């Protein structure tokens, strides 16, 4: 998706002027402007995007449309889509232009950043080694089994997965509807996507609930306000699309190309713009304290307002060890679980670590993650960071952001020094890893299917993947206090490139200071003692 041009920064002279005016205005303000507000009662009193969204009403009752009465054959999703397209004539074309359909985006003029192409993640790795059919359960289309899929068939767009309001809709392998789904009923009750629609896929990234993101899982559907002030029904009760607004079915979201914190504002009322920056609703100066507001320049809102991720009841995966996978008991795969029932070992995936209430890692981030494709040669440094974040203190667009750092081992080609696409999802005898438990064969098969060069040798590689944390915003009373970061060993202890008060104090400076004080005390002490001994004055 192309992203809109950034507003040019004001010319130097104007900035200097602004600074001088600011100086005049702000000095007196600082006297009383720095106390934070007392905790507000729970719930959200002010007008929010959610209220506007809830006020939207449909102008059509879809149950009145004859074409949606059906009957539709069991599991015949494309027939429903054809019916939708009789009125919404452009809808499928619009969807087909989005990454929900293509599973591929271009970045900086290079193609191949997507699941259907060469992108690799730290969990189930890739889909193009023959795993497409199982993974496309989450494709916004019907019948995506392998690379022969025709991306130009309009009736293969899946309208219902996003627009179902009944909760009865469910997709199966290759994205086809479960034959038990009452298609006509679902089709007559379509509406705007809610948390459930988006969550059906996005809560389950990485193969299971809560696995991938750390700040998205199905506990959000019933979350108390403390877990997520925005999406909790006790909180603002917002839906995903209240922030991830869409234009012609193009849903705003920081995928592989869009900078994370744009400050765009609508130019006229009602203009559809992404509200995916906090400032779009909260402004860039939401605190009463001037000092707190100024943190906005270098610190993302998320950094203070998401003290921990995976704050629901479900743990997120933080380590996935493919290198230890494939162990069998009596020739059969097995699972080991800890006291909480969370898998610590599965033959399919190897050793795993799951965590709740995880303190994020913090790094400079300007919204750009440099992803690694199967076709990219790996850097020399180990472990390999699959998607290092761009940014530094001196980058005007970068801020300190909270991240989930996900660690893994995964197979790679040590000769070509590239990642590989093993064939994992298949029955015994197919050569698939989860059928025959032979990684060398699975990688060979996968790379053949993907049509990529492979040296024939594989080894395991330690990889790290970065996941920006932005959901599960906590109530403001739970925001980080100053000394979480302004301390010697605080949360930002390892964030480089700048002087942080309370964290950085050259011990040399303090040493000199204390030396001066001690010498002074010694000086006056000795002087005083001599005076006392002489019994005078």
């Amino acid at each position: 998706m192309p992203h809109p041009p950034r507003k040019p920064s004001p010319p130097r002279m104007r900035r200097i002027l602004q600074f001088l005016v600011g100086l005049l205005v702000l000095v007196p303000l600082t006297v009383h402007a720095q106390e934070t507000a007392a905790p507000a009662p729970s719930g959200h009193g002010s007008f929010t995007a959610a209220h506007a969204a809830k006020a939207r009403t449909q102008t059509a009752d879809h149950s009145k449309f004859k074409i949606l009465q059906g009957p539709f054959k069991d599991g015949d999703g494309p027939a429903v889509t054809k019916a939708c397209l009789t009125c919404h004539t452009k809808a499928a074309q619009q969807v087909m232009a989005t990454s929900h359909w293509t599973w591929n985006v271009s970045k900086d003029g290079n193609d191949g950043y997507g699941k259907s192409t060469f992108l690799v993640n730290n969990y189930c790795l890739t889909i193009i080694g023959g795993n497409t059919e199982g993974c496309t359960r989450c494709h916004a289309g019907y019948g995506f089994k392998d690379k022969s899929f025709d991306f130009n068939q309009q009736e293969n767009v899946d309208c219902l997965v996003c627009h179902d309001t009944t909760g009865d809709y469910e997709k199966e392998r290759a994205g086809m509807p479960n034959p038990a789904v009452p298609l006509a009923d679902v089709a007559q009750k379509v509406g705007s996507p809610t948390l459930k629609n988006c969550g059906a896929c996005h809560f389950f990234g990485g193969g299971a609930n809560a696995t991938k993101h750390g700040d998205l899982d199905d506990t959000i559907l019933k979350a108390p306000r403390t877990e997520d002030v925005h999406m909790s029904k006790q909180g603002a009760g917002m839906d995903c699309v209240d922030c991830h607004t869409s234009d012609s079915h193009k849903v705003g979201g920081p995928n592989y190309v869009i900078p994370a914190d744009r400050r765009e504002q609508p130019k006229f009322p009602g203009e559809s713009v992404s509200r995916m920056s906090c400032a779009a609703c909260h402004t860039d100066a939401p605190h009463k304290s001037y000092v707190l507001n100024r943190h906005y320049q270098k610190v993302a809102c998320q950094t203070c307002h998401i003290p921990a991720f995976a704050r629901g009841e479900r743990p997120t995966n933080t380590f996935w060890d493919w290198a230890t996978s494939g162990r069998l008991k009596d020739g059969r795969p097995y699972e080991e679980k800890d006291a909480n029932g969370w898998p610590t070992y599965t033959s399919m995936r190897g050793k795993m670590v799951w965590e709740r209430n995880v303190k994020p890692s913090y790094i400079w981030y300007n919204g750009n993650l440099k992803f690694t494709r199967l076709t990219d040669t790996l850097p020399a440094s180990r472990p390999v960071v699959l998607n290092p974040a761009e940014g530094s203190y001196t980058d005007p667009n970068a801020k300190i952001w909270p991240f989930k750092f996900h660690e893994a081992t995964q197979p790679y080609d040590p000769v070509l020094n590239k990642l590989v696409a093993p064939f994992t999802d298949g029955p015994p005898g197919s050569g698939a890893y989860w059928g025959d438990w032979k990684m060398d064969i699975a990688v060979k098969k996968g790379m053949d299917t993907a049509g990529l060069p492979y040296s024939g040798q594989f080894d395991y590689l330690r990889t790290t993947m970065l996941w920006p944390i932005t959901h599960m915003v906590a109530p403001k009373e739970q925001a980080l206090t100053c000394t979480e970061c302004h301390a010697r060993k605080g949360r930002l202890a390892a964030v480089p490139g700048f002087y942080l008060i309370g964290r950085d104090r050259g011990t040399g400076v303090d040493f000199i200071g204390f030396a001066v004080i001690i010498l002074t005390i010694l000086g006056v002490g000795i002087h005083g003692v001599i005076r006392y001994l002489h019994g005078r004055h």
Partner: protein
Amino acid sequence: MRRVVLYERFERFWHWAQALIIITMMLTGFEIRGILGLHLFGFQRAVTVHNALAVALVTLIVFAIFWHVTTGEWRQYIPTRKFLREMVAFYLTGIFKGASHPVKKHRMAKLNPLQRLAYLGFKVLIIPVQITTGALYYFYPNLQHAFGWSPSALWFIAVVHVLGAFGLVAFLIGHVYLTTTGHTPLTNIKAMITGWEDLPDDEYFDENP
């Protein structure tokens, strides 16, 4: 002997207000820096108090400058070498032998040459350095944005500000100690509180109305 008002009402107010502000700023400042694990106000309140007191101190100093200029009291701080050597000798040896103070205090010359140097240094060096570095510190984000200042500029500002603060602590210790070298250990402090001090008769000036 005669009793004279050595320190006028505003002067006393200025002195003690400044003392209170500076001592509180020392405590809050050291807490913000994390020195000795000091925890008196809590970080956020310490920052708030420190910044508010900075504004209060500057305001007080503006009034003090006005007072010094309009009353001509600024002349008290003109440095002089007269009796400087004698003053040093007094503190190094004379004071132990019970020698009398080499400089007579006078309403129009109430500071000895060492005091003049020390207070002048305090007024034109330490305080301006602290106020300047403090302001640069506070407005660093704006300055960094406007002029593209490097991150190490903030480090430098902080180092100077902190060294100045340590200097102030040392000044305070020496200052308080030296107040005890008056006629009795409390003579000088009493004078600074009440304004009155007993001075020896003076043949050149008659200050009693």
